[in-house]
């Protein structure tokens, strides 16, 4: 039994302690917005917030998430009202969309730390892979969200 705090809610899950947080979110808590892409922290599709910081949940054992505030894409806002979500819609960023939960979480964490990121800040912080190649609109939407 592991106690977690996910999207502001205290939950208890029955999972092996070495289970990656990703699979606990997806399978135990049915929060499937967080995606599996590579399992080795290379692609970022599984990005969530742990105490406000972007973390690749495929590589964090659930036991390490205990005692931390976890936010998933489902908890970013109730109604797609987070500035990043709004910018993503306004700029029609997603294509297939599979990587976008992770992108949005990575960007939301960046904007928490650097409210007006430069292109260089974006280059350094957003290392997720998008196979559809939506990067240009991602960059535009980040600037738009920062200048809202």
């Amino acid at each position: 039994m592991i106690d977690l705090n996910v999207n502001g809610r205290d939950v208890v899950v029955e999972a092996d302690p070495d289970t990656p947080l990703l699979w606990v979110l997806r399978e135990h808590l049915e929060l499937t917005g967080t995606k599996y892409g590579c399992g080795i922290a290379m692609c970022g599709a599984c990005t969530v917030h742990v105490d406000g910081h972007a973390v690749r949940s495929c590589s964090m054992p659930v036991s390490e998430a205990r005692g931390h505030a976890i936010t998933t894409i489902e908890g970013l806002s109730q109604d797609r009202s987070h500035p990043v979500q709004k910018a993503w819609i306004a700029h029609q960023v997603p294509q297939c969309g599979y990587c976008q939960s992770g992108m949005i979480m990575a960007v939301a964490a960046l904007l928490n730390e650097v409210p007006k990121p430069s292109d260089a800040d974006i280059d350094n912080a957003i290392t997720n892979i998008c196979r559809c190649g939506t990067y240009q609109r991602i960059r535009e939407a980040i600037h738009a969200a920062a200048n809202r």
Partner: protein
Amino acid sequence: MSIVFSSRISRRTVLMTAATAAGALVVGARFTSQSQGAFPTDNLKTPSQLTAWVRIASDNSVTLLASQSEMGQGTTTTLAAALAHELFLPLERVALEFAPFDPAYRDPVYQWMFTGNSQGTSSFYDVMRRAGAAAREMLVAVAADRLGAGIDRLDVRNGTIVHRGSGRSLTFGQLAADAARVPVPASPRLRRDELRGRRIERWDIPSKVDGSAVFGIDVRLPGMLVAAVRSSPRRGGRLARFDAVRIKQQPGVVEVVELSDGLAVVGNTYWQVHRALSEAQLEWHNSGSTLNVGDAVPTAYTENAADDAFLTHKAVGETDAATAIKLQAEYWSPFQAHATMEPMNCTADVTSKRADIWVPTQGVELAQAVVGQLTGLPSDKITVHRTLLGGGFGRRLLADFVKQAVMVSMRLERPVKLIWSREEDMTHDFYRPGMLHRIAGAVNREGRVLSLEHHVVSPSHLLYVFPRTQFSDLKDWTVSAKPPQEVDIMAVEGLLDIPYDIPHQVVRQRFVDLDIPVSVWRTTGHGPNNFGLECFIDELAHAAGHDPLTFRVSMLSKNPRAQKLLGLVAEKIRWGAPVPDGNGRGIALAGAFGGLIACAADVSVKGNSVKLNRIVSVVDCGRTLDPRIAESNILGGIVWGLSAMRTQITFRDGVPEQANFDAFDPLHLWETPPCEVYFVDGDEKLGGTGELGPVPVPAAVCNAIFVASGKRVRSLPLSNVGFGFA
């Protein structure tokens, strides 16, 4: 069981399972098929496009049954908008449902139900308009009768038909049941096409920013188990030994199922079965592929190069090139993995009575056939439910993973979601085959190209995707089947009808057989072919001492569309403006997927590092319907084309050497240069934009690298010649 999408179109829920509401008008419209591709249709079943495209129910709901899958290319938004326009409905009022398999939903060109080849919009745009117009006329006919008014006195607006004189009105829902009994008009009157140039918000985007979009990997059924699978590391090899008892002792494991070339471990959660499978000591027979492909061109491509091994696709004109400058060069494009962000997966629920599968697929008809082949069930007891696709790029035309899911569900008699690990996905792809080009050309001092001869060595791209109705005796729908060579032209597409006016042209191909599976991949033959063609044209220009832009334009006197594109791309990239040492601009032109594209790249080369400063693409896709959707396809395509200059799959003794994104490294945000996309809008036949964007990118960049560094890149990935992106 049903899964719901939240959908911007409907603002209600869109049921994936088809459940026709009582009293619904289901419009069937007969459309004749036209054969326009390379595929013979005369020995196919007679097209039976009596099709249910739109369902209007008594509750006023209007549902489009979509033939096309949605993988981010935006087709389903554009097609729904075409239907809504004919019905005078705002798009928000149209719900979208992915149609199950029916011959009616087949692509009219290939007579095969699939999504691909960049032709979803061009194949179905007019079909949608006619379906909407037919439904409208049927509703109006009933309204005229009930209101006792001539149809010229009726207005259709917002789901209601209004009598202009009295103001009396009837809703679509009130009319639907009677309208269903009206004969379908053979040639309904279409409204003026007002969608050109209109930017429509894609219905699927809101669900893709809040995590609610349902992909295949997100499907959840009551009582469902989860399966992880490991197939032979060496392609085509077989499992020799495994310890079933020990695997089943692992936590969460319920069962192990031996597959034709591997093992599925089935249990309660993915992580548990994945871990059990990773720790299982599987032993493999020493069988399967022995292919070796490193950085060099594999011997299968270079041996047996005798002249009579080549099939002549084209040989026109003669040349007297005695005094001309002659060039010869060899170009290599490597094997590639699709690497969709969502790994292959399929959920199957098979009983003795029926089979349901939930799958992110481009290949509905093939999936349906494979389920039928495995279960022996008749087609009406099989439903292929489609989810959104986390990338397709051609990989999801195939049904190898569907086969596995169905086999496991049959064995366990339970619903099972089968998920591939990234490693399984990358090492069990149906790869874009490596392609070898030997090109010879002659150019005179005046800069006139006299002769161009292409020898292409490539496997067929169509071994697994050629419409399977062509092979009447095919027992296993997942095995390869060779199409007739004369229609198997994907390996030479883009070379047979080049835009340039060159008097002597030869295109020949040798089909090479490989013991690993290969198939179509975003750009298919067009990508590698354009890389060879447009770099070689550049080589000829430089050899003759001419500017690569004017050199091209001088060969386009009969192609004003292409001239226009080159003119604009040159202007936007500031062609001819001075550049510092180590910088260069390159240009390339391509005709592909029913469209034309010119691309220009501006790069700096410092040592081995290639910095991409800017990419400009100018597109003529016949007519531009939604410029924002089209632009997103081209922008993404540029990134795809750049990634293809860096990634490759190599093989050692039949085993793919790249298994994850650490070794197969697509472009990232920080490497993506500023890109500009312009559309030159003509009034031509609709082309596709899904795969057009990447086609000229490698040639444009390599031509720029040559100007910047003096080094000619003739082999990809760039690391083959020591380069990498900064």
